[in-house]
């Protein structure tokens, strides 16, 4: 009874306080290690082979047109020629049909879209169509003109938008057919509908009143696509895609999709094709390269075999390690029994 009246300083006998919580104590046993290695090895091999097979089924054409159009390249090196037009064409032969959806990309090399100052040089609030003082954003030095007119959209990213126009022509029986290309639906739904919005106004040009185009642009933002209201201003697909900066200095962005109509309902048939390019975007000054790419896709994406090869190598390595471990274990056991004798 005394013990009840006087609180004992004896610690509680709980599993937590006595460090006796029930626990699962996994240990690396031979069986588990070997099964891990063999199962993972087999799985990796299977996945790797699937990936390689599917990546191989992708048809892809890549043309470096900054080399092909070297005349235009040298013209653009001098910035005083900015208003001179330069056209250039690139022929290629499609030996096999490209079946299914065909996508057209432009690729850039050595273009450091991932540079920190480049990445932050934008104003998301402005692109959301809100009235904002871009002076407070990270858009410098592409914020305002000397007379105080703000740029719309501001920042280095928007200013440097890829502004070549590429058309694709199908040469069949000495006649030239323009391949119909879709310029919308190429961006993420969230970007198009959430992240980018035009300022609310009666019409677009009044919405952007009081702003000016960025210095490298040839036309203001509300004239990016005058044919389609849903693709003009900030919600222009080309702008949206460009504004989604790439993680690396070599990248490709979706430019157009082949519209599967008429002759091209199944994709691109084999034959001679020509890219007809209006060359505006200078790259040669910083040793950049420009590509135009036609590609189909599969479930695993494009024709990059990296994942497939990596999985195969990894699977092989895991399986081999499994065998090595088995061998070592057998040898050790033999030694043990030998010593016991």
């Amino acid at each position, binding site marked *: 009874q005394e013990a009840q009246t006087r609180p004992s*300083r*004896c*610690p*509680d006998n709980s599993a937590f306080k*006595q*460090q*006796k919580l*029930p*626990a699962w*104590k996994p*240990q*690396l046993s031979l069986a588990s*290690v070997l099964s*891990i290695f063999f199962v*993972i090895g087999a799985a990796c091999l299977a996945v790797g082979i699937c*990936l390689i097979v599917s990546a191989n089924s992708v048809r892809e054409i890549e043309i470096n047109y900054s080399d092909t159009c070297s005349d235009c390249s040298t013209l653009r090196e001098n910035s005083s020629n900015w208003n001179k037009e330069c056209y250039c064409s690139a022929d290629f032969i499609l030996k096999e049909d490209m079946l299914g959806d065909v996508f057209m*990309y432009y690729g850039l090399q050595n273009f*450091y879209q*991932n*540079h*920190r*100052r*480049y*990445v932050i040089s934008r104003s998301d609030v402005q692109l959301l169509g*809100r009235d904002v003082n871009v002076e407070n954003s990270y858009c410098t030095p592409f914020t305002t003109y000397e007379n105080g007119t703000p740029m719309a959209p501001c920042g*280095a990213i928007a200013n*440097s938008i890829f502004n070549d126009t590429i058309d694709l022509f199908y040469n069949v029986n000495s006649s030239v057919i323009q391949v119909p290309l879709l310029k919308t639906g190429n961006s*993420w739904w*969230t*970007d198009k509908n*959430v*992240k980018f919005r035009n300022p609310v106004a009666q019409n677009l040009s009044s919405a952007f009143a009081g702003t000016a185009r960025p210095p490298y642009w040839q036309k203001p933002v509300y004239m990016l696509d005058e044919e389609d209201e849903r693709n003009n201003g900030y919600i222009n697909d080309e702008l949206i*895609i460009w504004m*989604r900066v*790439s*993680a*690396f*200095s070599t*990248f*490709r962005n*979706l430019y157009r*999709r082949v519209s599967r109509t008429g002759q091209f309902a199944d994709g691109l048939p084999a034959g001679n094709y020509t890219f007809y390019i209006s060359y505006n975007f200078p790259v040669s000054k*910083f040793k950049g390269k420009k590509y135009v790419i036609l*590609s189909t896709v599969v*479930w*695993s*994406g*494009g*024709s*990059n075999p*990296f*994942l497939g090869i*990596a*999985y195969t190598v*990894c699977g092989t390595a*895991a399986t081999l*390690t499994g065998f090595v*471990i088995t061998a*070592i274990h057998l040898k*050790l056991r033999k030694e043990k029994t030998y010593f016991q004798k």
Partner: protein
Amino acid sequence: LQIFAFLALMCLILAIGNGIWEYDKGYYFQVYLPWAEGVTSAPYSAFLMFWSYVIILNTVVPISLYVSVEIIRLGNSFYIDWDRKMYYPVNDTPAQARTTTLNEELGQIKYIFSDKTGTLTQNIMCFNKCSINGKSYGDVCDLAGQRIEINENTEKVDFSYNQLADPKFVFYDHSLVEAVKLNDDATHRFFRLLSLCHTVMPEEKEEGNLVYQAQSPDEGALVTAARNFGFVFRARTPETITVVEMGETKTYKLLAILDFNNVRKRMSVIVRSPEGDLTLYCKGADTILYELLHSSCDSLKEETTEHLNEFAGEGLRTLVVAYKNLDEKYFQDWIRRHHVASTALEGREDKLSELYEEIEKDLMVGSPFPAKLLGATAIEDKLQDGVPQTIETLAKASIKIWVLTGDKQETAVNIGYSCNLLNDDMTDVFIIEGSTSDDVLNELRNARKKMKPESFLDTDEINIQFAKSSNKAKLLPDEQANGVYGLVINGHSLAYALEGNLELELVRTACMCKVVICCRVTPLQKAQVVELVKKYKKAVTLAIGDGANDVSMIKTAHIGVGISGQEGMQAVLSSDFSFAQFRYLQRLLLVHGRWSYIRMCKFLKYFFYKNFAFTLVHFWYGFFSGFSAQTVYDEWFITLYNLVYTSLPVLGMSLFDQDVDDRWSMLFPQLYVPGQQNLYFNKIVFVSCMLHGIYSSLILFFIPYGAMYNTMRSDGKAIADYQSFALMAQTCLLIVVSVQIGLDTAYWTVVNQFFIWGSLSVYFAITFTMYSDGMYLILTASFPFVGTARNTLSQPNVWLAIFLSIILCVLPVVGYRFLKTQLKPTPSDKVLLKIKEAKKRPPPPSPKRRLRRTSTRRSGYAFSHQHGFGALIMSGRNMRPKSPFATTGTFSPNSDKYKHKGL
């Protein structure tokens, strides 16, 4: 510190890279991205970038490391407080961690400095055995005459026939009581002697409740024993001693006390019994007393010697008792001479001891009253419970134990044997007792020569090392002796040994021994010894003690442990940990210390790994982003990574992990050794976890890079945008570190499961929330990653890349760890394997048997260390009058009482 050098190096590389890049590419890229304001040249930009990278990469050593370390320490301290197995119910004392910062050092102790009294021993003496007239009492035998172990169930002797018995006294052998009751003459004489021959002061506060004030606990124990067997020492005046003998009060006239001193090693009293007989009762060390005995008791001497050896073998403190009847005439003569001698002005001491010697000796050939041997007593200096086992366990954990005591050498050595510090298996026990500096040096050198002859060669590493720079204090490496040795050093010699030039010799010699006992040391010396070891050895030291004289030692050692016992609270107050019993030390070190250490090491290893893996991805990305200090991950991820996503699982691991449970770590003290050598976290381990982190970060960067390079999503849209890459890299990283902690965790409790899975789900929940439309519309500038989670994590190749990085990061670790234990098992791996095998069998019963020592050495005699109080008692000066009016002892209430009782 190295980590900061590493950080600076990384930043420097990136800054140089930036300089080159700006010069080579950035300059031309200014068309699209002009240099920032004020930046005019590539080197300047590189300089700025250096600092940018310092900011980005400083997550290798995040603040949360320190916070987490503190939390873990605190948690482990609470475990110590909460441990029921370190709770002492007798005085309701739980163990207490008074500092929270030293837990992991408990797992690295190499030297224990222990006090003796109150720490190893209870400072309680109890009468354990005796030999009377050639018969040994004290062991309990069963019917077949076989000795049985004394345990709690053994029936105790019932002393109820004696109303004055001390209820705390415990004795098991019934035959002795029988002998007393049968009026056996020798037995009666034996106890009469014990009740008369001493300098104890009685105190009877109320009728029948006697309290003895003994100068030494040994004496108290003997008198108490006599009291219980029916010879109650009741009261004392300067001239008389009142004893209640088997219920019958007798008053003896005390004629002389021949007091104890260190040379005589015995004391005697001369009393006149009520019947008028003159008797000299003597007790003392066997060696001394045997010299004095008359040859007529030689056969008895042999038997007694046999018993004495047996007692000594059990670590008991023995005394031999003898008596002698005196001739009246001779005594009168003697007392006269005694008086003359005691009033002599010169050489009083010598003369007195000569006289003492004379009367105690059986000098007179043919004397009608030869000195007769009565028997021997054996007193147990009660060790605290479980001390020998604890010391044995700690010794197995290769912890070196130094006992620092104020006691005499004999007592200290005796205790050393009885608590298993010293034993006969030792190759040798050196005793250093030189009284000059040179003697001490020689003794130390000789000892070392014997232990390790090669340590005197010029080729010996340490000699070379010290020849080079002699005056600088250096850390000594451990030296291995060619056997198990003990060292006993006297306080006197220690004073010399602690002087400057001998220090080194002392440390080298003493540290080769398994056990060191320093006796007669002052509190200051205790601290000096600890300081010495701290100075020359790279080892964690622990000091344990209970009294105020241990405070300095406790404060000096890395870790101080206070025994919260009888001797007040000073030791506890200055200690880092405290508990009630010495035996809890093994649990504190082997269980709590070891766990804390392992947990802390695992924590540090994992923490550095995860932050290296996290941070170095930025480093690799620098090479691809023009060294522009662009981060790989979302800013929110960087903020939350250490704070939310990875903090709890690692805390869970380092609070709950145990590789083996407490029982096994006590059964296999060898598991403690890696901690002493700091094998689980040192530079090599740190570098290896750094390399592991670098490897992981390479995988974490290049797998997503390869997977995104020049490819597209399955719906044809571009995949390689920065935000998708960031999301992919951070998801990979988080899953990889979560799996890694799963691998590191050896003990999966519910909490661990909850933390790990919880953190992962919290990551996805937070990510989807932050990347949602609503958050973007509310705080546009803060959450630019809108929609990334939905769009990217729906892609099969993103997930394939994530799985691939997990496999590549984790599988090699699994393989490496498994092969390491198979091919190059560390000693502790072997122990763990043994445990694993043993677990399949039912656990063996923990050894409860009390250790039987077979030592044949003679233990010390049970006497107080100082000169006795005999003279004081005889003078009556200490008989303090309790009444303010009385000035002399005769008027004191005490003496009045005697008169009532039949003076």
